[in-house]
């Protein structure tokens, strides 16, 4: 038996969660379907004119993916809380932050990665110019992990609360605002001919910081919420 440490804990929870999601792999498509639906609401509300849609396409795609990510966060800890695994995680010798990190990574892989794959489809539906697709995908690749990490902290804080869905959204959205501004803004900048490097680099820096800070904060939040 190997010595229990952060890495073994991470690997164990990572493979467990992946296996659990695989057993309900149909559910993993739901955030992507939600994003497509939300994005479709805009042409239905604003009219199908390509010029209008093309102008708002990057923003709409970003908002749709943000909302899909937000809604899918609720299940991050729920099943573990219900069957008592979460308490076992908190009692385990491995650092709770490492275990939480594993859960967030699996969550991103299974919820947000399908969203990233749906993004080109949404871009086509909304007549987004093809030159912007690369910037959009990079901004989403940097932004969706940020959203998952920040969201994990808020979910940890509200874990165990019944009917916490709306409250979770209200608490998380102000924290999502900078990510949305930088992410959608980077694509807007590219659309206007400016360089999007600044915004993307800022997001990358934020992501690096959150990779370290968010699991630790989420672990603290779990302990606060579940004492």
């Amino acid at each position, binding site marked *: 038996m190997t010595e229990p440490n952060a890495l073994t804990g991470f690997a164990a929870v990572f493979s467990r969660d992946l296996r659990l999601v695989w057993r309900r792999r149909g559910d993993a498509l739901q955030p992507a379907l939600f994003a497509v639906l939300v994005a479709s609401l805009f042409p239905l509300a604003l009219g199908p004119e390509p010029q209008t849609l093309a102008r708002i396409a990057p923003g709409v795609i970003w908002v749709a993916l943000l909302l899909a990510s937000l809604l899918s966060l609720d299940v991050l800890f729920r099943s573990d809380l219900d069957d008592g695994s979460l308490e076992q995680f908190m009692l385990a010798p491995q650092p709770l932050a490492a275990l939480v990190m594993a859960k967030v990574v699996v969550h991103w892989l299974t919820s947000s990665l399908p969203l990233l794959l749906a993004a080109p489809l949404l871009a086509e539906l909304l007549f987004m110019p093809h030159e912007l697709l690369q910037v959009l995908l990079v901004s989403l690749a940097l932004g969706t992990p940020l959203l998952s990490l920040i969201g994990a*902290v808020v979910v940890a804080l509200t874990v165990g609360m019944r009917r916490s869905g709306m409250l979770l959204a*209200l608490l998380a959205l*102000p924290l999502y*605002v900078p990510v949305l501004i930088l992410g959608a803004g980077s694509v807007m900048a590219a659309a*206007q001919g400016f360089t999007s490097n600044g915004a993307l680099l800022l997001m990358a820096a934020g992501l690096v910081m959150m990779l370290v800070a968010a699991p630790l904060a989420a672990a603290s939040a779990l302990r606060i919420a579940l004492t």
Partner: protein
Amino acid sequence: MNPLLLWFYQTGSPANFERFAKRWSSWFIWPACALMAWGIYAALVEVPADYQQGNSYRILFIHVPSAWMSLFIYVAMAVNAFIALVWRIKLSELLAMSCAPIGAAFTAITLLTGAFWGKPTWGTWWSWDARMTSELVLLFLYLGVMGLYAAIEDRRAAARAACFLALIGLVNLPIVHYSVVWWNTLHQGATIRLIGKSSIDPAMVPPLIAMTIGTKLWFVGSLLTRTRAALIEQESGKDWVRRLLLPITSRGDTR
């Protein structure tokens, strides 16, 4: 023991704080009212109309101090939240939680008076410049802290969670502000400067100072009153609360 430290320990005990708050809160509220009354009078009557903006700039005397308070109170809340989380002091938890509604009130005043000022001066109720957007996010942060505090039944656990959220929000606020500044550079022409280029006429300074100090004093007084009320409610099962309220309740008198 250091007398200041001793004073902190003693005042930190619930029964002592209740007495302290009851005694001192009026000493902050009434001077605050006096200062603000004079400030409002001077702002409306004595100060001449601005040569560029006419009379509508008089709203500045409400808007600017409220904006400063909305930020100041958040910092005060965060400091108390930090103390509450690290040292688990019950009184700090209550102080932090009592800051939130007052902060939300001043933020709401800032947003509303900003809109009332914007319409006659620049023709629009709202603009998405950095300050107004950050102020709006600030309102949501306050409401989030209040909402989370209300949503958890155990008062101490609720306070701890809300304090944690307040600290996260503190980090978020400058990030939001600077990201909106950057975002506005993309959308040239959308920015509206809230304080005009004209340098401030010396006659305008005294009422502004009066309102600034007045709102700060009001905050302290209101914080003491709110924390006292929260403390009494939370400790209502304890003997000292019973002894405090019983003579009054048996007389049917309310205070």
